[in-house]
């Protein structure tokens, strides 16, 4: 009886393991794609994939490039993606993609139908960065080699992250944010961009990685403004900075003030901004409460503190004004999320203006409240 029990147990155990349906590919049996790009083409869309060449990454150092770019046209993204298999040795596996580059032309035509593939495909995860190529094709961006990392996509991703942390202009956008922005009415999407500085043709060669001053450099660039999934244009660097002050928390950035007839820099840390809405005399007003910690590198006397603080706030206000002015007048796109704040504080008012938001948005007035804390000043 005991032996019978053991046999039954073994059969059940084996069955549990075999029936679990866990059948996947080995790491060396698929080709990892680490960046993808989508472009406009006559047939519909052109998908490019930056695939890792495993053979090069092994212990034997070679001269060949560690990545290969495949591009293929198709009516939809999925169609083009499957056709890419005609180029590759193994099955392509897009789980590990670090960034998705959208070509500038395609962005101007509308990205919703193409983004949808990456949201719903079961082999992708939602933690890759989506960027727009700054007046370039996505394919060209992917073809550029980088000095700073063997694999260009990782370099691109790191550049964007770095720029976001140090200066605060770029923005890491995951695909969830895009889906939310495209679904909600009235709110407008913003994406970071990546630009090619220098000669495109020379950037593809190996020589681009062999000199100290390569002919081509990839640069994290300013923010693109979308409305209803079409790109309207770019913000300048100052406007991008102002936009990020309002929209996001910045870790570190710079402001400038004049003190004793000299232009000095002010280091800014840990900003945060809260929005609230009020109807003042029938006019919609947004109140922005902005907090930050600054470091001033000059010696200031205690009675001058308020003066310095006001100057800093002035500079910040100038940046924010620029951003809001551009958004309201040039693009008419609510990139800051004002409509959400209005909806949360005063839902009835929001219902009334929801349909004619395009006309209401340029008239929204903004008031500022600054809470600037001067952390440190240099003392002699």
């Amino acid at each position, binding site marked *: 009886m005991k032996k019978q029990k053991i046999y039954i147990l073994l059969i059940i155990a084996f069955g*549990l393991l075999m029936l679990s349906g*866990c059948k*996947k590919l080995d*790491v060396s049996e698929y080709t990892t794609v680490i960046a993808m790009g989508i472009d406009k083409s006559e047939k519909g869309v052109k998908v490019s994939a930056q695939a890792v060449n*495993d*053979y090069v*990454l092994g212990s034997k150092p070679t001269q060949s490039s560690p990545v290969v770019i495949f591009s293929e046209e198709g009516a939809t993204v999925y169609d083009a993606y499957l056709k890419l298999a005609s180029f590759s040795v193994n099955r392509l596996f897009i789980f590990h993609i*670090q960034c998705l580059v959208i070509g500038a032309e395609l962005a101007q035509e509308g990205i919703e139908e193409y983004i949808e593939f990456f949201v719903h495909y079961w082999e992708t995860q939602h933690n890759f960065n989506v960027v727009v190529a700054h007046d370039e094709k996505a394919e060209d961006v992917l073809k550029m080699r980088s000095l700073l990392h063997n694999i260009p996509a990782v370099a691109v991703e790191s550049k964007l992250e770095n720029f976001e942390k140090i200066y605060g202009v770029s923005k890491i956008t995951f695909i969830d944010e895009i889906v939310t922005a495209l679904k909600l009415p009235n709110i407008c999407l913003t994406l970071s961009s990546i630009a090619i500085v220098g000669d495109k043709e020379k950037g593809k060669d190996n020589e681009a990685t062999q000199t100290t001053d390569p002919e081509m450099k990839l640069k994290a660039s300013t923010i693109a403004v979308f409305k209803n999934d079409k790109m309207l244009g770019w913000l300048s660097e100052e406007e991008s900075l102002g936009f990020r002050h309002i929209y996001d928390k910045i870790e570190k950035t710079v402001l400038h003030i004049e003190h004793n007839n000299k232009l000095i820099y002010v280091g800014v840390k840990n900003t945060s901004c809260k929005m609230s809405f009020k109807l003042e005399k029938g006019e919609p007003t947004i109140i922005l409460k902005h907090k930050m910690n600054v470091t001033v590198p000059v010696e200031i006397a205690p009675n001058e503190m308020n003066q310095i603080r006001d100057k800093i706030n002035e500079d910040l206000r100038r940046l924010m004004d620029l951003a809001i002015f551009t958004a309201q007048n040039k693009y008419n796109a609510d990139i800051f999320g004002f409509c959400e704040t209005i909806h949360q504080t005063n839902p009835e008012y929001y219902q009334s203006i929801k349909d004619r938001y395009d006309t209401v948005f340029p008239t929204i007035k903004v008031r500022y409240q600054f809470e600037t804390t001067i952390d440190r000043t240099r003392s002699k």
Partner: protein
Amino acid sequence: MKKSFFQALRILLSKPPKRKETSENTPAQKYIRPSSDTEKLLQMAEEPEVAYLNKPLYDSIDDTIAYIKAVQGNCFDLVIRQMHLKNAWDKQRIAVVYISGVSDKKIIDESILKTISDNYRNIPKQDKQDSTFDYFNNFIMTLSSVRNTEEFGELFITLLNGDVIILVEGVKKCFLIDAKIKNERAIEAPMAQVSVKGGNEAFNESLSTNVCLIRRRIRNPHFRMEKYILGKKSNTSVVVMYIHGVADPKLVKEVKTRVEGIDAENILDSEYVSFYLREKQWTMFQTIFSTERPDTVVASLFEGRVAILVDGSPFALVAPMLFVQALQSPEDYYMKGYIASFVRYTRFVAFFVGLYLPAIYISLIHFHSELLPIDLLLSIAGQRNALPFPGFLEIVLIMFFFDLLRESGTRMPTSLGSSLSFLGAIIIGESAVQAGLFSSIIVIVVTITAICSLTIPDYFLNLTLTVLRYLFLIAAILGGLYGVTLASLALLTHLCSLRSFGFNYLSSYAPFSASGMEDSLIRGKINKIFRRNKNISAEYPY
């Protein structure tokens, strides 16, 4: 063609013919020396094997000696010396019987025979009212370690242990005198559980030395040692030790019942005893702790456990055993508590790493490659690119190869042994990588696993892990991390179901007791470890 094949098959599968009882096949009778009573002797020699145990001695020395020789055959080292002793009244015949290999001839000649001959001659004229035996016992055999017996069983066992037998004519008893030669290995350092700060004595094969090592550390009159002779054919001495008043009486009774119930043919090693003592459950884990250090045994005795020593085995058994003991080392108790706790943590981690690492490696690269960060993934993919073996075959092969290396390392003669050490294994692994057979990362994985599993103080758990690793690996190959989880669940359930002398095997963890945790993962203060109400000295579960 076909016919001859089937004929051959039939011959192969048929049973061999039974051996008939011819005159050549009966047990040889040529070892029996012809004596006056030949038939009686023939009858003696054909008795069943253990009939000597309860057989009473004969009156006449000649018969006794003839029986001894009949049972033992013509042993060349059996020495029989018959003497006549004369004193004022009469002559008396005695015989001295011993085995020259195990008895010390010097003691016999100088102490025993001298005492006898001196005493016999010098007894003045007094009335001889005692019986012969009492006369001998009280006046002649004035030696210290004299016992007497009436049965052949004890006679043979003590004769074979190294004692001297003195047979007296006309008496049905004999004298047994201790004259053992100590021919044993010196007390050396332990092989497996070496300690830096604590002493480095280990048991050796002789029971008396081992008992002495323990006696030196416990000077408590309540310390009990009870000797059993087990094994129908081997007659091995087994000693059960405990401290009366510290050990739970029910536990002691249970151990003694089990030891008395051992019905074995031979007991050659403590493992044989452990086989009979432990619960009949199918497991790969040890449920009786073996150790070769006397200080471990003494500490266990003070905690309330029962220890068992087997003659001929340098390993002592301690009952009951909990799982945490396999991860405790005697060195822990000779260091400060914090450091010892840290070292114990590393051992626990090493246990899990040694068990899980190959399985997790294979499930990560084969099934769940999304869990790896991109740099690690690309590095592994680069190394595994153009290899001939698929992932699971590769790791099974290299694990098997490392196990072979370990096994051959223990058997290698010393002149070659150093060249196939652990480093040699890594170098061989590197050459295999260079040859393009394996990837480098798998050599690292297997090396780390082997190192981690060698950290475990108990050598037998190491061997268990070697087997369990393969099972986990198979589970991982079939089902990825899901398979590993199922296997872990199975192992955990199995461990929880184990009992060691009635105590749960995972005692401080599974039925959680906070007071018992002081000596498991952390090493608490010394004064708290030996308190009475710990998990072992607690009430016996049955």
